[in-house]
């Protein structure tokens, strides 16, 4: 059992899978000799050599096309798109090619590949290097979507992604890279499509993803101090989505709050609220509430960016005021 940072968990996870399977290769910009701009992939070139760990030109379409073509011919590529914002320069390969090819060919073409990206804000990098775009991927049929919140999940879910027979987008939340937690020694392999209940309370259910999970937990701690017991569910993978766990946790408390780093419109939270509204309608005691970044690009200035992203403060205030609203039954009386 070692203290490992989310950042170091990435290279451990990649190494774990590359040792296991010669078909696993890794490519991206500055990932090999330099060990990655986020220093998340040091040592891999030294251990696995230039045939398996490749530095590329600034050619994101070439990177993902190479991963796709290699995946359909027997390899299991891992491709880094440095900042998830850059998925926009290769979105055709992701959304139109990788996501659709298995279906279009009636299963003739398998695409076991992983695309990993640094995702999200908090670093004051400005609007073009801070987006949380996991919903772009969730909206496209044919992509599995993973976003871990802990170092342990980075290792376990990454292993699951590499071993998955379908294409997986793996979002590493940049603001979590320095965060450490306990990670067991030895091989860790988790399961896609499984949410985790991080904390249990009977008054409301907070459903969060990636960097919003620690914030939801911090908020839950403070709410507990004020007599409000919150359940916190870590979604972990958006596709496949563990609706069983989430719906039962929402039904249990009757109150849903999503905590989303993404801009407001059409996020996974909207999808989740819609599923809950359709399937847990009668169990809901109050309107579901989405706590998100406003629907704006992210500003660069620290003072402004800090205001934009959901904070533990904002979560606490939102939950408190919602719980002071009349509930449905009260409303009925």
């Amino acid at each position, binding site marked *: 059992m070692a203290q490992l940072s989310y950042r170091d968990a990435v290279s451990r996870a990649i190494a774990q899978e590359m040792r296991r399977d010669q078909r696993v*290769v890794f490519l991206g910009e500055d990932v090999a000799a330099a060990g990655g701009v986020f220093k998340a992939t040091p040592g891999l070139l030294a251990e696995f050599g230039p045939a398996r760990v490749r530095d590329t030109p600034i050619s994101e379409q070439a990177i993902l096309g190479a991963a796709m073509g290699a995946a359909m011919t027997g390899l299991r590529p891992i491709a880094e798109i440095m900042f998830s914002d850059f998925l926009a320069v290769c979105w055709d390969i992701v959304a139109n090619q990788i996501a659709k090819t298995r279906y279009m060919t009636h299963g003739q073409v398998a695409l076991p590949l992983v695309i990993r990206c640094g995702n999200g804000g908090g670093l004051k990098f400005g609007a073009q290097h801070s987006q949380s775009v996991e919903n772009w991927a969730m909206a496209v049929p044919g992509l599995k979507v993973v976003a871990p919140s802990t170092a342990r999940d980075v290792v376990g879910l990454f292993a699951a992604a590499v071993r998955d027979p379908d294409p997986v987008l793996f979002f590493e939340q940049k603001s979590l890279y320095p965060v450490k937690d306990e990670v067991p020694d030895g091989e860790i392999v988790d399961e896609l499509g499984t949410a985790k209940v991080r904390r249990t309370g009977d008054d409301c259910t907070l459903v969060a993803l990636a960097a919003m999970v620690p914030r939801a937990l911090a908020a839950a701690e403070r709410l507990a101090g004020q007599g409000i017991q919150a359940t916190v569910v870590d979604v972990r993978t958006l596709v496949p989505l563990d609706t069983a766990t989430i719906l039962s946790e929402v039904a249990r408390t009757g109150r849903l709050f999503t905590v989303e780093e993404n801009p407001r419109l059409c996020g996974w939270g909207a999808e989740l609220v819609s599923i809950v509204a359709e399937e847990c309608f009668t169990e809901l005691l109050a309107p579901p509430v989405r706590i998100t970044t406003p629907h704006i690009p992210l500003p660069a200035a620290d003072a402004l960016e800090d205001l934009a992203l959901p904070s533990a403060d904002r979560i606490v205030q939102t939950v408190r005021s919602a719980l002071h609203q009349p509930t449905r039954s009260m409303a009925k009386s």
Partner: protein
Amino acid sequence: MTADTHADPHADTDSDNGAGTAASSGPDLRTRLALYRSQVEIRQFEKRAYDLFLQNLVKGTSHLSLGQEAIAAGFGAAMLPDDYTFATYRGHAHTLARGVPMAPVLAELLGRANGLMAGKGGSMHLTSVEHGMMGSYAIVGAHLTIANGAAWSAQYRGSGQVAVCFFGDGTTNIGAFHEALNYAAVCKLPVVFVCENNLYMEYTPIASVTAVRRPAADRAAAYGLEPIALDGNDADVMYHAACAALERARAGAGPTLIEALTYRHGGHSRADPAKYRPVAEVERWLTRDPVVLYRRRLLDIGVAEGELAAIEAAARAAVDEAERQAKSGPAPDPELLLTELWADGGSSWRN
């Protein structure tokens, strides 16, 4: 706007590229008969496909290779069975040239259950992995980068396979072309890029939207490659060029970019009467019909009329049979709608 409109196609092709030419020093007779057979099969298949549109049996769209048969045939004859083909929406010819039977291809155009992909892909996405036909891609540019990936895999596995990627003149102006060519050259990938320059990107003359006269050949140097521009209507030229490029790739010498000048006899797609092309240009090119020219060449070198007639009759019979099978195919089972998104065979995104 630059470049002339290719008044004389020959002005665009050079032979100082070691690919030999036309009648002289051609391939052996067996190969030549195979090249003729392949061209005739493609020609007859495409004509039949067109007839079926007119009968409104082909829904959606479709893009024919009528007039461009020599390119697919030349490469098809030169490639080894486990080499990889990557084609575009205009991919019927390249699919047949890899030995994929006509019936499932035609049935796919008709959206039938016995189609090559059970109707899920359609005319623009013909794929038959067992024949090395790794897909037809309908968004311009992407498949050049994907072909690189298959070449990378072959290189990594040391399999000796080569990826051949076919695309059009218009495709040379999109970003993915540039990224793919640079990446292939940097990694010395075993890949052959074949630009079928039919002078038009859809309805627009390529010369009017391209900064150089030869959209592919005049870009080769930007990737440290030799400029190669050839007569795409001569199956022997295509065959020799294919052999040379495949050889180079297998030898580890990296990618080749070939510009094959050709012309489509019909419109861009089923919807297009191709009125935008000067009549004189069309007529000039019709006199250079690759199938007619090749037939004449075979007669010149002494092949018997009867042997050629037999090849043509066999092709017609094959197309007739394919049409029969395709037309008798049922509509895809409704349950197919939700299958094969994932490797588990289904399409569920939740539990």
